[in-house]
């Protein structure tokens, strides 16, 4: 039947749209099979392709289930469950025979939509989810009211969603929030792109190509000068000749230090699967649940699998105090990098103090032909070179990026007996002209060194700056651009298109930061604040019940005003006569005599007169004037007035008081 064909396509389309965000989360074969099923379902009726019978579908469903179990290694995690949902929804389209099947398939769509929250709660993903809800609802409308065309169901669905928005907002703000616990177990942001707590050749260069936001920072007041934007992540102590590691450090309550140039700020950290929190050099405190290490770095016990928002305070001018330099700050793998050791000892002997020695090493970088590049030559083939990486870098290739410089610098320091550690984190960031917040991207990843002196404590030294001072003022993506001969961004730079894209990028980043802070960051704490402002004591036992009651009331008020708005919409005839009649019906309704919507006035009058002879005369009078005004050949303003007056005076007593009221 041609009719059924029209009804199948929106369903197939809705399932397809709702599954699309999962395509990369589910096993590739599941995605491919689902896509095949959509295409088949979409074209099958139009082209007269056969529909699989119940038995074939059962077999397909069984093998699909078994296949997903197998590819998930026997268990059914979140990914597996979503894959199963996607596949079964796709199969269900082919099983559609009755109205119930259609509705069931579309209800599955909503499950598909909400399962998207397992993978992402970013603004873009949320907007797409709204789009999916819009389409799925339109499909439901189409299934129930076919023959409205394509536009009318979409419009109605949109109207429904707009009407739902205020209710959604009220519930979002007031409904008691379940923090962490329930959801965090399910969240599976497993991807570990981004920061790593080790530094080995190459891993920062890989990051330089990743322009995703690492975190966003909102300062209280003006941010400190850009040259202070060193975002501390981890301090690396142990070096084995190839890789720098954090080593075993004790957790402390945080070492106190004196400082000036206070900066307080809020960081919204994107999920990265690591546990490190980033803070501006030198942080004195990061929010309570973090563990404070004695090298002024912070971590939390659970990996960051969903966006984390925390406050921090830092001092841009600081003195960590005369601590005992750790032995770990001097350790070097035995026997490696002989040339570097020799250079270090020679220069140290020439210097009067540590400061001078540091300057000499930096001068060595500056005065010799070192190049900053994100594509350093691979270490030579010989075993000697592969082992003595720092020697190879300092005397051989002299090409590298921050990791190479920091590593070489630290080795040179330690070789001369100067305590030194490598700090990995991010440097720089882009200040968004719209929000004023600073966005730090993965490509801003950086490594620098800290040298310990008795007078100043741990002091930051950035050897990369000695070679490529521009690196500190530019971000890495610009360096990448400079290195890529045919880069689209480079071609666009300076053109109007480029400027426009830049502006749009900042705008989008700004909206994202607001979304993260205001919507995703809306937690129990913020809610408690709102509750207390609304007069509910957040600590009280009945606070959640009160808030729910308030949310229900708010929802009801919104729904009621929407209903009122609709009732008073132009086009539904709301003149004085109609209003008088509505008031009259309302009064009778309160007296327990409800008019059915499809009941005409005379019919209603007769029903009322039979039920309540005591008010029959009044009701007859009012109805007679109303029908003549409304359906007769027009009426005078006089009769309109008398109708309004009669209705106003009309006051049907409740049944109990009939006897007394009749006199």
């Amino acid at each position, binding site marked *: 039947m041609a*009719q059924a064909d029209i009804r199948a396509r929106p369903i197939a389309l809705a399932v397809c749209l709702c599954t699309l965000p999962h395509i990369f989360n589910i096993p590739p074969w599941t995605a491919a099979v689902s896509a095949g099923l959509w295409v088949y379902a979409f074209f099958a009726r139009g082209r007269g392709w056969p529909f699989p019978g119940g038995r074939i579908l059962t077999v397909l469903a069984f093998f699909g289930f078994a296949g997903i179990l197998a590819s998930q290694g026997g268990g059914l995690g979140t990914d597996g469950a979503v894959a199963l949902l996607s596949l079964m929804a796709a199969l269900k389209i082919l099983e559609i025979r009755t109205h119930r099947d259609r509705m069931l398939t579309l209800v599955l769509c909503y499950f598909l939509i909400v399962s998207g929250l397992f993978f992402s709660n970013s603004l873009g993903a949320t907007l797409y989810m709204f789009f999916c809800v819009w389409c799925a609802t339109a499909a439901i409308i189409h299934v*129930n*009211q*076919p*023959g*409205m065309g394509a536009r009318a169901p979409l419009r109605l669905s949109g109207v429904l969603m707009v009407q739902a928005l205020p209710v959604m907002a009220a519930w979002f703000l007031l409904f008691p929030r379940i923090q962490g616990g329930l959801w965090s177990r399910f969240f599976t942001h497993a991807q570990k792109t981004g920061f790593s707590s080790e530094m080995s050749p190459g891993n920062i260069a890989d990051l330089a190509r990743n322009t995703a936001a690492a975190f966003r920072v909102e300062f209280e007041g003006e941010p400190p000068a850009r040259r202070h934007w060193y975002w501390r992540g981890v301090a690396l102590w142990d070096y084995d000749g190839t890789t720098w590691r954090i080593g075993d450090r004790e957790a402390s309550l945080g070492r106190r230090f004196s400082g000036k140039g206070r900066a307080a700020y809020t960081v919204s950290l994107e999920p990265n699967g690591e546990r490190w929190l980033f803070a501006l050099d030198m942080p004195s405190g990061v929010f309570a649940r973090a563990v404070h290490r004695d090298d002024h770095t912070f971590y939390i016990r659970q990996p960051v699998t969903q966006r984390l928002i925390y406050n921090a305070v830092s001092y841009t001018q600081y003195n960590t105090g005369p601590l005992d330099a750790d032995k770990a700050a001097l350790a070097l793998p035995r026997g490696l990098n002989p040339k570097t050791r020799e250079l270090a000892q020679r220069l140290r002997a020439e210097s009067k103090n540590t400061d001078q020695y540091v300057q000499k090493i930096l001068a060595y970088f500056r005065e010799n032909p070192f190049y900053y590049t994100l594509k350093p030559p691979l270490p030579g083939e010989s075993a000697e070179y592969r082992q003595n990486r720092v020697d190879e870098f300092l005397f051989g290739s002299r090409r590298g990026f921050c990791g190479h410089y920091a590593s070489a610098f630290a080795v040179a320091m330690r070789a001369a007996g100067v305590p030194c550690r490598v700090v990995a984190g991010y440097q720089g960031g882009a200040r968004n002209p719209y929000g004023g917040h600073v966005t730090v991207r993965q490509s801003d990843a950086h490594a620098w060194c800290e040298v310990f002196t008795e007078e100043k404590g741990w002091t930051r030294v950035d050897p990369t700056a000695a070679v490529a001072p521009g690196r500190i003022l530019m971000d890495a993506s610009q360096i990448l651009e400079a290195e890529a001969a045919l880069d689209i961004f480079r071609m666009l730079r300076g053109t109007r298109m480029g400027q426009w894209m830049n502006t749009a990028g900042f705008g989008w980043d700004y909206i994202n930061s607001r979304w993260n802070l205001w919507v995703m960051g809306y937690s129990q704490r913020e809610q408690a604040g709102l509750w207390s402002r609304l007069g509910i004591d957040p600590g009280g036992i009945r606070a959640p019940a009160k808030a729910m009651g308030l949310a229900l009331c708010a929802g009801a008020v919104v729904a009621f005003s929407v209903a009122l708005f609709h009732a008073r919409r132009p086009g*539904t*005839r709301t003149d004085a006569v*109609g*209003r008088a*009649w*509505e008031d009259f*019906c309302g009064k009778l309704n309160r007296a327990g005599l409800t008019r*059915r*919507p*499809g*009941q*005409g*006035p*005379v*019919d209603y009058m007769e029903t009322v007169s039979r039920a309540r002879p005591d008010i029959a005369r009044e009701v*007859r*009078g009012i*109805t*007679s004037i109303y*029908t*003549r005004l*409304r*359906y*007769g*050949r027009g009426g005078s303003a006089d009769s309109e007035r008398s109708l309004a007056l009669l209705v106003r005076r009309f006051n049907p007593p409740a049944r109990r008081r009939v006897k007394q009221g009749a006199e």
Partner: protein
Amino acid sequence: MPTQDSQAPKLARISGHNLESLFAQTIEQIGRVILGKQEQIRLALACLFAQGHLLVEDMPGIGKTTLAKVLAGTLGLDFHRVQCTSDMLPGDILGVSVFEQKSGGFVFHPGPVFTQVLLADEINRATPKTQSALLEAMEERQVTIEGQTRPLPGPFFVIATQNPLEQAGTYPLPESQLDRFLMRTAIGYPDRASEHSLLAQGGVFRELEEVRPVFNAEKVARFQKLVLKIHTSQALIHYVQDILEYTRKSSAFRLGLSPRAGLAILAAARAWVFINGRNYVLPEDVQKVLPYVAGHRLRGAEGQDGFAPDELMGLLLSVPVPS
């Protein structure tokens, strides 16, 4: 009802009659023959005064022919009856030109269609060709035979019947033809008391003979024009539109009501109001006639052809009467 009382004199002035008593008398007289069927009598009268035609779907022996006869008799109109069969030709209804030797030319012998009240019994037994010839005449109120157009006498009112149970050897009327009937109704079995008196008096032949005309053709035609003047307010037209829209959007119907159906609803409601002696239409009047006007024009989502009046009550309950 006060609404009617206050309006009746006005209408009486226009028509020159006390319509209420006139129609009460008419209905009473017809009711003496068609026992216990006040509603059907009123509907048939309304259909006639709305210048529409009536389709009666019922079993044989229910009194369809009697209704047509007594209606014609009471209104003072000519009456013809055609029993439709499958071997019937259009000429058998419309008439033929026959060569007459005496005058040496063709003389037209008008068929049964040249009358004022025509009863077409079992119309679905006639072939589509014959059906369409009759339905054409109903719509145009004139027939064209051998290139010559002959107007039918006014008023012209067709009551067609069909037997809903016997389908073998019939040609069901297509949707476009059904549309030409203003109303479709059933008469139904009489109630126990009415049937008792019918059986006790051994039929209604005597009563049928006693029928005296209350109207005449000229008066009927004049009243038909008066019906057109019955007022339908903006609010009422909106209500009818809401009903039309509902049938078009609801999933219960595959085919909603056409604008022509909307005009038919209004025409029927006007006539209904007229025979009840009021001069404007209320939503209740629309609700009264709608099941009979819309029933045969709607197609159900599950493919059923038309709806019985009771089945359309749900439709009327779902469309709110505007305030």
